[in-house]
């Protein structure tokens, strides 16, 4: 169970930059829309690529990874679910370091995702576990340190955002 706590978008963005990220690949997600995507779009140090469908992000991030460029994929959990085959093939089977920040649509931030009353949210962590993808819940500022730590690993990772960043 999470506790009500602040999650600050500017701190997440600082962690993204500190992780050496230049490219953010995104389809808008309502959980992260105002607190993350909007300031990222205004940020001159980050290059935002707006894609039409979430699985494009996985291919683009893979191509960038071959150039030693780590990207951040910023999507909604519905887009993650729609992109599972690409994530399976590229991130898992090819072992590419694909990093995803996934907004949990309509999730109650004071509940753990597995306890969500939303089916689509409730199945996220079991799916990630089943695919062998490391995942971290980013529900408060205290969790933001997990972002830099995860980017130091050469593995795919998912950051689950259950609370709209301010």
């Amino acid at each position, binding site marked *: 169970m999470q506790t009500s706590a602040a999650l600050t978008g500017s701190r997440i963005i600082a962690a993204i930059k500190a992780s050496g990220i230049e490219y953010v690949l995104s389809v808008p997600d309502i959980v992260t829309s105002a607190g993350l995507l909007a300031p990222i779009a205004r940020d001159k140090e980050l290059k935002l*690529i707006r*894609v039409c469908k979430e699985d494009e992000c996985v291919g683009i991030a893979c191509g960038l990874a071959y150039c*030693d460029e780590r990207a951040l994929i910023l999507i909604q959990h519905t887009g993650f679910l729609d992109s599972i085959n690409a994530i399976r093939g590229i991130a898992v089977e090819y072992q590419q370091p694909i990093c995803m920040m996934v907004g949990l649509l309509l999730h109650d931030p004071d509940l753990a995702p597995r306890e969500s009353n939303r089916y689509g949210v409730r199945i996220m962590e079991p799916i990630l576990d089943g695919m062998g993808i490391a995942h971290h819940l980013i529900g408060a500022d205290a969790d933001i340190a997990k972002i830099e730590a995860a980017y130091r690993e050469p593995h795919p990772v998912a950051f689950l955002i259950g609370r709209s960043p301010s």
Partner: protein
Amino acid sequence: MMKRDECFRVLARHITDEAVVATYSSAVDWVEIAPRVLNYTSIGAMGLDSSHGLGLALGRSDRRVVVLQGDGSLLMNLGSLVTIAEVAPKNFVHLVAQNNTYEANGGHPIPDPQVDFAAMARAAGYAAIYDFSDLGVFTQQVAHVLEQDGPVFATLHIEPSKPLIYDYASLYDPAKRVAFKAAWMRR
């Protein structure tokens, strides 16, 4: 109407240090005609070849990327035309072999053989558009297609080919991915 392997033999005469991204039937023909370390054939999910190519083009803007995509693959990722046109990488060449079939999956037809990919790419905003049905014309213009500022798009209208052998273990060989990266990142 052209044959894919004939087009690729012509294309291969102009390929030097570009990354060539190819999948399924295009990959089978291409790696037979032009086996080289800078062939990128591990796509992971049908349709994402153009998206991989965009990532490669962004990450190495000093080198050119050529994507050899089938019509079925592009239909699975039509939105990538809009994404690529908006990002507008100058080093990106997108060639689509249109034989109107899902050749690797039994030769079944695509939903509409009349689909006009070049018109779609033009509407999306690609910098240059071509539509080739004649091998002589393709031979004459291919150097220019590859050299000009992108994103460049060309449809290659081809016949369905003879039955191919799809050696996916070789196309998806992890060692080839490692070798590709080393060669692609070499300055």
